[in-house]
């Protein structure tokens, strides 16, 4: 090999011996700083293999002498966060809903925590802004089926509506059309009357006929003036808010086939502190009573 050494005349540097169209590559040494950095990174790599988890094995991996694990790290981070929150969480667990709302510090914490819990657990049906959808109540407004007090909201979250929990809220309206309790004409008249309650009816004669049927069939739950009843979960029919739509066909559909929305019970799935925060959050959206 020593015989093949060729030194470039101009630069005095050895060439690699490779030639392209008369151009030869000089074999300059690597810059020192580069070389030392390279050695340092090699050393670093070896040290890293020893102290940190590095090499995959068949069913596990080398653990490293430091015993570092990203899962443990995460668990620790979560535990630390829990620890930091526990001051507030413990207080929230001990406090009544009214006490939470009265304490500005707890309220701030509960609104933030309730907001996150809502986004994860509730927004699928009620919407990210809690504005609901047809059949899924808008939680921002002041119209409630089972009541909008802190306790009523808390109860609904705990046990749900028509859920599998034994304390669940359960309201049932007869399917007047399907079960042939009322004729089509009667249903039409009642619908006109119900619409007239909030000032949007069109046929006054039909509404007058419907008033009689309403008093017989509906007022037991929806009350005589149609304002509904929290105890029975009977919606207020006299206001401007309609869960299933306020046009006549929607009202006729409700009377004919009845409606039965449902919400799962969250007790057992969410801890008590989270449910309290959720109740406070929903109550704060603007419609709380």
């Amino acid at each position, binding site marked *: 090999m020593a015989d093949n050494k060729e030194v470039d005349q101009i630069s*005095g*540097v050895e060439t690699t011996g490779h030639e392209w169209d008369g151009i030869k590559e000089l074999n*300059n040494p690597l810059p020192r700083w580069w070389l030392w950095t390279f050695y340092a990174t090699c050393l670093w790599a070896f040290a890293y293999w020893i102290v940190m988890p590095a090499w995959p094995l068949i069913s596990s991996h080398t653990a490293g002498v430091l015993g570092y694990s990203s899962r443990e790290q995460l668990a620790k981070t979560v535990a630390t966060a829990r620890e930091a929150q526990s001051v507030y969480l413990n207080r929230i667990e001990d406090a009544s809903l009214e006490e939470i*709302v*009265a304490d*500005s510090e707890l*309220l701030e914490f509960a609104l933030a925590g309730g907001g996150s819990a809502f986004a994860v657990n509730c927004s699928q049906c009620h*919407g*990210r*802004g*809690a*504005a609901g959808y047809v059949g899924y109540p*808008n939680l*921002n*407004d*002041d*119209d409630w089926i089972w009541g909008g007090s802190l306790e009523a909201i808390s109860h609904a979250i705990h046990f749900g509506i028509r859920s599998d929990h034994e304390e669940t809220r359960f309201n049932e309206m007869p399917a007047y059309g399907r079960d042939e309790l009322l004729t089509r004409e009667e249903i039409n008249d009642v619908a006109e009357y119900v619409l007239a309650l909030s000032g949007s009816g069109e046929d006054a004669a039909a509404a007058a006929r419907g008033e009689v049927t309403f008093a017989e069939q509906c007022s037991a739950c929806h009350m005589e003036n149609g304002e509904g009843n929290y105890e029975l979960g009977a919606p*207020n029919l006299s*206001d*401007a*808010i309609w869960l299933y739509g306020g046009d006549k066909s929607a009202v006729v559909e409700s009377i004919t086939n009845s409606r039965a929305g449902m919400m799962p019970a969250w007790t057992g799935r969410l801890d008590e502190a989270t449910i309290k925060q959720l109740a406070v959050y929903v109550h*704060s959206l*603007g*419609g709380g009573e």
Partner: protein
Amino acid sequence: MVEQAVVEHTTAGVTAGRQGGVERSDAEPVNKKEKRSLYQKRIKIYPKLAKGAFRRWKWVIMAVTLGIYYLTPWIRWDRGPNAPDQAVLIDFPARRFYFFFIEIWPQEVYYITGLLILAAIGLFLITSLAGRVWCGYTCPQTVWTDLFIAVEHAIQGDRAARIRLDKAPWGVEKVLRKVGTQVAWVVIAVCTGGAWVFYFADAPTLAADLLAFQAAPVAYITIGVLTFTTYLLGGFAREQVCTYMCPWPRIQGGLLDEESLVITYNEDRGEPRGARKKGDHPSALGDCVACNQCVAVCPMGIDIRDGQQLECITCGLCIDACNSVMDKVGLPRNLIEYSTLANVERVRAGEKPRLRLIRPRTIVYSGLIAVVGAIMLFTLVTRADLDLNILRDRNPLFVALSDGSIRNGYTVKIINKQHQERVFGLELVGLPGAVLTVVGAGADPGALAVGPDSLASFRVFATAPRDSVTDGAVDVTFRIVDQAGGAASNDTVFRGPED
């Protein structure tokens, strides 16, 4: 080949002597253009200590700039009970920047931008007037390198002694001097890194914490990194930073013109150079006595007699060296001087040299400084200490209530930059019949309290009758009024159904 050059050089340094009453040096300009090669290993420069007006200036400027750097964090400035009393403080956790009477919040970072623009244009102006004075006198790299060389000089002696020491075999004296120099450098480097962190926290508290090993890890890491960079850049990299790392010499090349002051060797007067006997000035020779002192003192390792060079930081030490020699041999001073390239031509053409300070580029730079400075001063003087931000709820856009009225939700943020608590009344202008409510027990839109030097956020509902909203939206204005004086407002919209 490289090794050879170093050996040659170090032998050369000590063969200097005296001739004609003038100290001579055969110092080589190691960074001379002809000698520069891409694969050239750094050749160590042994700058000789110059004596004269520019050296004195450099000592003064070094003392002042280092003094400012090391002492500023310790200056106290009373801002009242709710704010720190450090005159200059960059408080990252609280997101505040304090500079004497100025206090800046993160959203006012454009003051820093303005300051940087001013600094840049100021540097442009100075450079076009007086060349690279920033590089030669005030640049931290220059100041710290100068300080490190001064330490070297104090412990190892002047140029010739340092060259001798490097050549000498290792012995007790060499070890002591070399180790002493390194220790002194490290101490300076630690102090440099140490002073930096005091700008970011209360200096006395942090100093106590640092000594007790109680300070945050980031403080120690910052000190460590800056210690390392100071030690490396001041002790070893030195002139290479200016020549190879710093973009500024290249930029300045475009800022200089023929009327800028630069270090100039008066070639017409100096050449042909040559040694002579004292008091004897043969007419065949110019004024340059070829003593090489200008090269020996140069911290950049160049020969100014080669003309303008990228490496020259215009520190003026060669002027000092040359003037001392000129005084000794009885020739007029300023063979090397601060002059302009245009003046060299003027003298050559028999005209009088003059300084043209007012030129289009200096007028443009001065004008820009005046404009940016005026804008900054105006914004600083009229800086509001109260700010109101309104975030409209976008989900839901609006809520229809059971009585048919429309409700909009807003997040109202009030920024109180005063150092005392303030109470504001909130009102909504532009929507008759609207009622405001604030979320939270006991919250009253008529009395929203905001703590000192802080931001408070309120959830506010505005409710208005259905028929007050036409075409889906109404332009409204939120307004806060402090009974004790001060008001702010912000525009937003109130949305309703699109009929």
